[in-house]
């Protein structure tokens, strides 16, 4: 075997890195001449489409031919080499026959012959040459790993030995495919015959047929013609530097080797030990961190450092062992195979590290231009603002006029430069100014948009639209855009801001999604903890609706606004977005970190108000059933109901304004189910999801089966399947507004009262008290940005406030209702101030602001609705001498004893359990009754026994059994009507 030949082969297969393979190669070549001589006899009718790409088999035959022909044709591998064959000993005719046989594909005859004469087959011809059913098939045969080539060679040897009765056509072993070889044959039987008795072939294993469509793929080679230029950024593929960024310093095209510059990962101590011949304890799986080489440090460890001059470049290098160092970088010669050049986009950190070494920042800009090597076509578009970064015109700004292949015509507004200038694409960089709105089109932040706030040469600092974070991006990676996106908001089934369970059973909210990883703010209230996880590490999305209690045992549901009163996030407030395992995730829009999300323990929060989702009551009732005494005084419950009902109306407006969730208006409406298993049920809508409505059944309340009170009902279409029963329907005892609890349930014996009052679909705007020149609060109405703050100050008990005035008319006259609220320190409440008449008149039709006092107590249409008990009930539950909790906005709640009640509903409260503390003035909504316990003395604050003293002798659900002091009668009254008395 001539050396020349072997080298040529070598070159072609590019095994120069792999001595083992090289050996095989040689072995194979030794056999080649012999085998091919015979092989030629059974010519291979392989279509040219495969042929051109096929390596190994073509290798066999071609070499055979070549060797037979002339010693000097070794390098030529194409069949279009008539010259060499003409000179062959065997003769041209034979070769022509062979060629004829090979290429005369029956299908090719249909094609235009002219194409062939041109010698350049068109695309169509290539298509026609693809294998068909009539061609021999490819079979995939399993063999021992690492023995693929050996097997192929053995088969070849076998073919030589057996001659023409060996029916297979060719054998292919691919370098990238382990464990398998391909055999080309007409029948499976031929393959079986051929591999019979072969040592390294698993003959009992199934022989797989390669589908015709995939045959071409088997042999196609991906063309990797990436030019390696100096200064290109590459990544290492092998060794301890695997994945590291490197910069090409020198390219040796002939030997296919490049010199790259890396940040060394060298353990100096280990090196020193090695040099001194000390025993080295091998620590496996330890890769030293990348660190610049410090020669002095090395010398201290007595490592021999030589300073040598490179012959070629004239630069000085520090030599340690075989390694070359310069400026702390390691210069390493590697094979082109061991670096990856495709899609190398260095990250900022990496570049910064590289930058550090070369102190002078001047290089930077030019250096960065090397990043542009990976630019896509059409990078610059007409109209783009660009800056020249190299050459004479450096720092000249201009606009792209036209883009040619490599050159970009730019127009500058500089004086005297009227004609567009042609500049090489590589010398240009996009230019942005602070204030530009851009979109990131590649890199790690791909997809996000934001505003440029700072430009540091080619690096932009962008304030993203959604997360309000500053990100650093290359100017090259962004385009101007008016579009606003969140970046990626969805990854698989997970969306931004979803609550998810992670694989280690921790949970958190997704606060950022990018192309590779998901950032999750974990549910750890002690400190903000962000986990970066992969998609697979998320187990599932938690989609539960849960309720928890806040510090004061108020029930918090999703969307309620809470304030954090302790812990690291103290002072933050916002709507609750998720609740899980007693941990709340708030969204504080003033919080810039973690996309505004804050994770807190529910017990360190205080409910500031919020939307009504009905669920608080069910839990409330449960706790009462269980006789556990919630410290919530009963009355607030009542008023919560009242105000939240109201709030829903208002809230609905907000939501619908923001997210088009107009269906929220349905919340609180009385509906009747028209179809499905719950047909005929009536109830109040407590929650509206897309196509689902959650109803609260009235009937179930009466029976007290609380667990069945809520029923999911699916509707094909949301509204048509139930009819809104409107406000006139007399069926709703629960519509008796305002003081349902004033009618003790057992006493009246008939009407279930608990459902709270509601004037559904109420629109705040119709409130007669709407100030004509709205105060600040009116801002909130339309400004979507401020809805959150609005929720902070919902009216606590607007209805009751109206009622507590003994003479409602006087309030009308005073028209300073709004102001009285501002006195209370919550000016924004003003627009929530309800009409005092609304509760009485659910249709609330006739009460316009200008005609107030006229008929306040004549509720018009809905007399039937009202239960007679309620009629005369226009009293406040506030009474002197009872124990209450005073909860002023922004303060903790304090117990106190009511000393005096004013006709306008405010009262004087002496703080302290026995009223020994200072006195404060509170309005009714700031005051809550303290729930009495069994055997405690109570005062009845409503109903016909109002004012009587009694003793609570038992509890029955939400009712208390009391014995009146004066008559000693035993009565069952709603707990809401019982006020605890201070201890004597």
């Amino acid at each position, binding site marked *: 075997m001539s050396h020349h030949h072997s080298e040529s082969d070598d070159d072609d297969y590019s095994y120069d890195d792999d001595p083992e393979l090289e050996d095989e190669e040689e072995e194979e070549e030794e056999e080649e001449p012999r085998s091919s001589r015979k092989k030629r006899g059974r010519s291979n009718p392989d279509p040219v489409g495969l042929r051109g790409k096929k390596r190994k088999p073509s290798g066999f035959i071609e070499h055979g031919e070549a060797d037979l022909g002339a010693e000097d044709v070794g390098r030529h591998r194409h069949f279009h080499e008539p010259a060499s064959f003409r000179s062959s000993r065997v003769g041209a005719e034979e070769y022509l026959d062979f060629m004829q046989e090979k290429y005369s594909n029956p299908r090719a005859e249909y094609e235009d012959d002219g194409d062939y004469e041109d010698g350049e087959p068109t695309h169509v011809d290539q298509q026609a040459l693809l294998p068909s059913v009539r061609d021999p098939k490819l079979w995939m045969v399993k063999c021992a790993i690492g023995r693929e080539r050996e097997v192929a060679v053995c088969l070849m040897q076998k073919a030589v030995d057996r001659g023409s009765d060996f029916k297979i056509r060719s054998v292919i072993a691919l370098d990238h495919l382990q464990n398998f070889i391909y055999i080309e044959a007409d029948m499976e039987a031929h393959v079986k015959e051929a591999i019979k008795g072969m040592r390294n072939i698993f003959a009992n294993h199934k022989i797989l047929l390669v589908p015709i469509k995939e045959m071409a793929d088997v042999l196609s080679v991906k063309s990797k013609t990436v030019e390696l230029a100096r200064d290109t950024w590459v990544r290492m593929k092998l060794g301890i530097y695997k994945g590291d960024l490197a910069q090409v310093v020198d390219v040796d095209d002939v030997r296919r080797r490049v010199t790259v510059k890396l940040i060394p990962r060298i353990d100096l101590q280990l090196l020193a030990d090695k040099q001194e011949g000390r025993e080295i304890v091998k620590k496996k799986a330890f890769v030293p961190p990348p660190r610049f080489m410090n020669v002095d440090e090395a010398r201290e460890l007595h490592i021999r450092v030589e300073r040598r001059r490179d012959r070629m470049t004239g630069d000085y290098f520090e030599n340690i062992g075989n390694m070359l160092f310069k400026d702390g970088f390691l210069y390493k010669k590697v094979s082109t195979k061991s670096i990856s050049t495709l899609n190398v986009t260095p990250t900022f950190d990496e570049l910064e590290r590289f930058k550090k070494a070369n102190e002078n920042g001047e290089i930077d800009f030019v250096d960065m231009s090397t990043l542009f090597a990976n630019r896509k076509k059409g990078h610059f578009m007409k109209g783009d603002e660009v800056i020249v970064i190299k050459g004479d015109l450096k720092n000249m700004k201009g606009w792209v006029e036209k883009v040619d292949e490599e050159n970009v015509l730019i127009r500058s507004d500089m004086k005297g430069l009227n004609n567009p200038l042609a500049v090489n694409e590589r010398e240009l960089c996009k230019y942005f100014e602070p*204030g530009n709105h851009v979109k990131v089109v590649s890199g790690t932040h791909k997809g996000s948009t934001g505003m440029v706030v*700072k430009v540091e040469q080619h690096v932009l*600092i962008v304030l993203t*639209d959604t997360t309000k974070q500053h990100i650093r991006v290359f100017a090259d990676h962004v385009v101007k855009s008016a579009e606003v996106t969140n970046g990626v908001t969805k990854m698989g089934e997970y969306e931004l801001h979803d609550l998810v369970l992670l694989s280690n059973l921790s949970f958190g909210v997704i606060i950022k999604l990018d192309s590779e990883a998901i950032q999750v703010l974990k549910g750890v209230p002690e400190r903000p903890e962000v986990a970066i996880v992969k998609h697979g590490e998320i187990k599932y999305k938690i989609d539960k609706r849960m309720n928890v209690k806040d510090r004061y045992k108020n029930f918090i549901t999703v969307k309620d606004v809470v304030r954090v009163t302790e812990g690291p996030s103290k002072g933050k407030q916002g709507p609750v977005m998720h609740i899980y395992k007693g941990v709340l995730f708030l969204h504080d829009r003033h919080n*810039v970190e973690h996309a505004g999300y804050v994770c807190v323990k529910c017990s360190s929060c205080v409910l500031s108000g919020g939307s009504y989702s009905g669920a608080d009551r069910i839990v409330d009732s449960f706790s009462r059933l269980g006789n556990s005494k919630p410290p919530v005084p009963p009355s607030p419950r009542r008023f919560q109901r009242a105000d939240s009902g109201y709030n829903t109306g208002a809230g609905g407006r907000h939501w619908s304004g923001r997210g088009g969730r107009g269906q929220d208006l349905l919340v609180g409406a009385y509906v009747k189910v028209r179809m499905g298993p719950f047909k005929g049920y009536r109830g109040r809508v407590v929650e509206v999801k897309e196509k689902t409505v959650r109803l609260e059944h009235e009937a179930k309340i009466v029976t007290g089966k609380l667990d069945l009170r809520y029923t999911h009902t699916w509707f094909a279409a949301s509204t048509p399947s139930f009819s809104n029963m409107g406000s006139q329907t007399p069926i709703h005892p629960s519509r008796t507004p305002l003081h349902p609890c004033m009618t003790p349930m057992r006493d009246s014996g008939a009407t279930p009262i608990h459902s709270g009052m509601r004037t559904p679909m109420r629109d705040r*705007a119709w409130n007669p008290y709407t100030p004509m020149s*709205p105060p600040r609060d*009116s801002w909130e*109405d339309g400004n979507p940005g401020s809805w959150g*703050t609005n929720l902070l100050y919902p009216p606590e008990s607007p209805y009751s406030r109206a009622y507590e005035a003994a003479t409602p008319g006087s309030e009308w006259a005073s028209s300073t209702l709004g102001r009285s609220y501002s006195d209370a320190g919550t000016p924004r409440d003003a627009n929530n101030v309800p009409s005092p008449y609304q509760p009485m008149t659910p249709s609330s039709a006739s009460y316009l602001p200008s005609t107030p006092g006229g008929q306040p107590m004549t509720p018009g249409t809905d007399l039937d609705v009202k239960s007679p008990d309620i009629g005369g009930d226009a009293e406040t539950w506030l009474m002197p001498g009872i124990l209450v909790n005073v909860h002023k906005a922004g303060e903790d709640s304090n117990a106190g004893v009511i000393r005096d009640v004013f006709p306008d509903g405010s009262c004087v409260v002496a703080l302290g359990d026995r009223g020994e503390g200072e006195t404060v003035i509170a309005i009714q909504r700031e005051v809550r009754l303290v729930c009495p316990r069994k055997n405690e003395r109570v005062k009845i604050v409503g109903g016909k026994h109002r004012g009587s003293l009694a003793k609570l002798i038992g509890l029955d659900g939400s009712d208390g059994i009391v014995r009146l002091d004066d008559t000693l009668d035993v009565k069952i009254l709603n707990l809401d009507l019982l006020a605890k008395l201070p201890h004597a």
Partner: protein
Amino acid sequence: MFFHIVLERNMQLNPRFFGRNLRENLVSKLMKDVEGTCSGRHGFVVAITGIESVGNGLVRNGTAFVTFPLKYQCVVFRPFKGQILEAVVTLVNKAMSISFMYLYDFFFWLHLIPDDTEFQAGDMLNYTTSDGSVKIQKECEVRLKIIGTRVDATEIFCVGTIKDDFLGVINDPAAA
């Protein structure tokens, strides 16, 4: 910049409000609906100053609501790039940004503060220059220049700078 302009809007009114005070109701509803909103085109509606005309109401099919076309004068505020504003700092945070309240909850992100200004954590978050002479904290008044605006359909978002001549803190009630 503030503008006094005439805008139009179709108001829907529930029939129960028809009567003597129809107009008042319409106006009060309009105020509720419009004031404080932000449209990308016109900016923040600060106040309605007058009603130009109330068109004829049109009963809508299907509902009893009546649509009135209203023309009204209002004062709007729209920030422009390059505009100089004076504002009160309402929030200071670590991310090198300060938000300002101008009118009502209107954000400015300030990346561009002088280079020698550093963030001081503690009770009172603030930014202080290296010599300690200038302090930016909550409640202080600053003059800034808008360097960029982003206009959405319902939101205007601005980035301001105080890193320029004559910009910066002009009054600090806390320090005084």
